[in-house]
């Protein structure tokens, strides 16, 4: 599930150190952080919102937000939970903004809880479609754990909840996915053995 780009803190070199240098106005450190973290942030947004256009907008928003609140990062603390807490905030704001715009445009009384169905770009695989059908909080936890490769502890920090809360949401998400997988067509080869 996890690609090389979406690695956790342990595999990204010195991101905490880069952040410290960024706070001290080192342009090279800032550029390196953008380069290192953007792919996984983009993936986080794409998986959550199901749209490349929105993911691009939110990626830009999140970096400008990070830039504005960079003083709130305490050197020595893990960086990824800090970044993802900000990313969550951007996602929620963006979602609310979209809801407001949609309500003005369509005058609909009730808007769907989940993001709109995915664009038929051919880039989204069944996993994204299955995840899109999960409730927002479960989708968020699952995305952070399995798409972005964060640890349970990091997800708990990023979502301002407890480790137990994250485990509970992940469990519910897996249960729901199992049910959906029972009904949905399975990707080729999925019913074969698992790499051991």
């Amino acid at each position, binding site marked *: *599930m*996890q690609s090389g*780009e979406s690695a956790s803190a342990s595999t990204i070199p010195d991101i905490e150190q880069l952040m410290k240098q960024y*706070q*001290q*106005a080192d*342009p090279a450190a*800032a*550029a390196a952080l953008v*380069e290192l973290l*953007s*792919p996984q942030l*983009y*993936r986080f947004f794409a*998986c959550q919102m199901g749209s*490349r256009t929105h*993911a691009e907008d939110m990626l*830009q928003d999140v*970096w*400008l937000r990070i*830039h*504005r*609140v960079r*003083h*709130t*990062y*305490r050197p020595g*603390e893990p960086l*990824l*939970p*800090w*970044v993802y*807490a*900000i990313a969550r*905030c951007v996602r929620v704001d963006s979602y609310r903004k979209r809801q407001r715009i949609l309500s003005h445009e369509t005058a609909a009384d009730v808007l769907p809880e989940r993001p709109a169905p995915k664009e038929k770009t051919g880039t989204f*695989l*069944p*996993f*994204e479609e299955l995840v899109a059908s999960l409730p927002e909080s479960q989708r968020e936890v699952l995305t952070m754990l*399995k*798409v972005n490769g964060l640890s*349970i502890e990091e997800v708990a*920090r990023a979502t*301002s*909840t*407890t480790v137990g809360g994250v*485990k509970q949401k*992940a*469990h519910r998400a*897996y249960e729901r996915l*199992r049910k959906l*997988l*029972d009904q949905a067509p*399975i990707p080729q*080869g*999925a*019913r074969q053995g*698992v*790499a*051991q």
Partner: protein
Amino acid sequence: MTCRQMDNMISSRSGNSPLPPEAAEHVAGCQRCNTLVRLLDENIETPSPSHEQLKRIQAAVIEDISPVRPLPPARIFLVAFALIFLSVVIVGSIRLGVNGWEVLRMEQKIAIFATLVASAVVLALSMVRQMVPGSKHAVSPTILPIVILVALLLVIVAVFRSEQESAFVMNGVMCMRNGLVYSIPTALLFWMLLRRGAILFPKLVGAAAGGFAGLIGLSVLEINCPNLNEYHVLVWHWGVILISSLAGVALGAVAEYIDRRKNHWIS
């Protein structure tokens, strides 16, 4: 191994690293877990941001770059909160008197003030952690102010008894005014301390700061007010915390609105 245990294993497993033997055994015998693990193991090629976009972001960040001073350590804020709490309660007790303290029975003093102090400590920790996104929280900051309000409500109901009171409203308004006189300026003081870190969730930080200031107002009232009527304490003393918390949320909402207008620079 059960499917539930398998879930925890899936969550803590990084990438598609090999399954532990007992998990592999379970997956071999459980079709549903097998399918789920297969799905999660697939290395999905999600689209990546374009090179041009990354360059644009880098340019925007670098163009506006300047050194920033990180927030001071949490202990500095905690000491500041403790000093403000003690100072305001002492000043309030000196100015208004300690009649309430004198009439409270020992068990009432212990129940009320232990709850107040515990609530203040927990709220202070929560406020300080909320200033840094991605901090560890023992209780969700969203529900903490509600938990504290309910806990205090229950303690008040448990330790006070209803009594006959002739001037319920007149006495009460005076008490509430006394409480708010100490809590509102304190809330503003907290806001000044917290504002650098209250950028992401100003309403939550506002609720916590308001609640904390309300605890100070309630402490002053419990030391000062000799009225032990349960309803008086519930409505006019506990109400101070409720009003302060709501005022904090309102202040946070205003700050959020101003911040959004001011920083509408995202192209």
